[in-house]
């Protein structure tokens, strides 16, 4: 379970991107974050695995506070780098631009983390990577370099790479936004498969139909706050907040 309490973040330029986010996500739950660009949804996701730091608030995973601790004098300080590394492995993230390592084959991309970060035996990690790539439909392309793969294929490798760490949560940051329309389907199909596995997921997306289909709850963000949250049917069919109504009218 993830519990986020009172998350605040101010960018160095003085903008308050997150102004007090409270959000609890249960095991096996899928929450989609929607909202217009600049609403803070991607920043929230990036704070969750500490690619961004934040100024106040707590993020807990299974009851343990992440990223910051309180030192004996009561000050809030970053955890040690090794503690941060260990906790990051529990939070897989998939990026909009795939971000595969260009000099590694699909297979190498997937087993790098398990081998180097989790010290799993190479043979075992390779076999697991092979199985994961087969699962995302790329069993025949394990030896291909990213530049030899289509966007959709690269993104599926990126999903396999995140899953290879056996994370407790999967964070998906607009994973279909950079794809050609005809490639979106194959990536979403992989995510549908994970839904059946009851993988805890937080999804930032502009694919509202997809969000509605897979999520248990939708959180609508505006100006750094969660303005409305609830089951997809409530958010999409009975929106309360006027800015949400406006947002839905525009994207439809």
């Amino acid at each position: 379970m993830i519990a986020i309490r009172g998350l605040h973040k101010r960018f160095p330029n003085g903008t308050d991107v997150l102004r007090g986010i409270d959000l609890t996500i249960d095991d096996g739950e899928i929450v989609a974050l929607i909202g217009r660009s600049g609403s803070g949804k991607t920043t929230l996701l990036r704070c969750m695995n500490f690619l961004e730091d934040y100024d106040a608030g707590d993020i807990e995973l299974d009851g343990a506070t992440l990223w910051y601790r309180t030192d004996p004098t009561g000050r809030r300080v970053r955890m040690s780098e090794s503690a941060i590394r260990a906790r990051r492995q529990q939070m897989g993230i998939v990026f909009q631009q795939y971000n595969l390592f260009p000099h590694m084959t699909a297979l190498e991309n997937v087993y790098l983390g398990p081998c180097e970060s989790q010290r799993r035996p190479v043979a075992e990690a390779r076999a697991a990577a092979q199985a994961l790539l087969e699962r995302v439909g790329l069993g025949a392309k394990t030896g291909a370099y990213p530049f030899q793969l289509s966007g959709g294929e690269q993104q599926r490798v990126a999903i396999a790479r995140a899953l290879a760490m056996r994370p407790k949560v999967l964070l998906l940051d607009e994973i279909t936004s950079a794809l050609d329309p005809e490639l979106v389907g194959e990536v979403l199909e992989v995510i549908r498969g994970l839904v059946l596995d009851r993988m805890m997921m937080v999804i930032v997306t502009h694919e509202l139909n997809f969000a509605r289909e897979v999520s248990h709850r939708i959180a609508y963000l505006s100006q750094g706050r969660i303005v409305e949250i609830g089951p997809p049917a409530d958010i999409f069919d009975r929106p309360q907040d006027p800015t949400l109504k406006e947002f839905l009218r525009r994207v439809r």
Partner: protein
Amino acid sequence: MLILLVKGAMATLVLGVAGIAGGTALGVVLAALSFTRPWPLRSAYRLYVFLARGTPVLVLALLVFYGLAAMSIAVGPYVAGSIVLVIYASAFFAEVFRGGVLAIPAAQVESARSLGLPPLAFFRKIIAPIAFRYALPPYVNVCVMIIKASSVLSIISVWELTLAAREIIERTLDVFTVLGTAAALYFLMCFAVDRLGRRTERDLMRRGFMPERA
């Protein structure tokens, strides 16, 4: 005459390889220094680069030659010459490697961070290979420069191609044939280095190091 010049070219090649190998090793360490957190280390890095890069090779050669003598350290001319080239090359290489690291897309670094890679693996598997790819063309540049810079070592009595040429000219007075041949030999060596660099670049591309696409 030609045999003597080719021998000189061999000596130049040995000096060049020593300078490039030593300079690369020292350059990697220096570049790493430039990314450390404590400011004295970073200042030391900048000072070293300023000094080593801002001194003409000729002056640097004389400094090393007389410096070693003043400290009564007896080394042969080749060792002294190699030291000069290593110092000179390391400053340029360090900046080339620093540039390579800075060119790594932030996205790659984030991916590696999100996998929780420990520092050594992060450097070995991600930073070093990608930075090397970006640094390769300027790296080859510096290699060529070092081979040519070795010619000034003749001033501290390092016998290499240029000194060989001058000796032959003193005997034969055939200035243009001798210098022309020497120049051709320098060109040949630099050309070979350039080709080697291009081939490495092509090999890397086949192994996934494609130029960034927008």
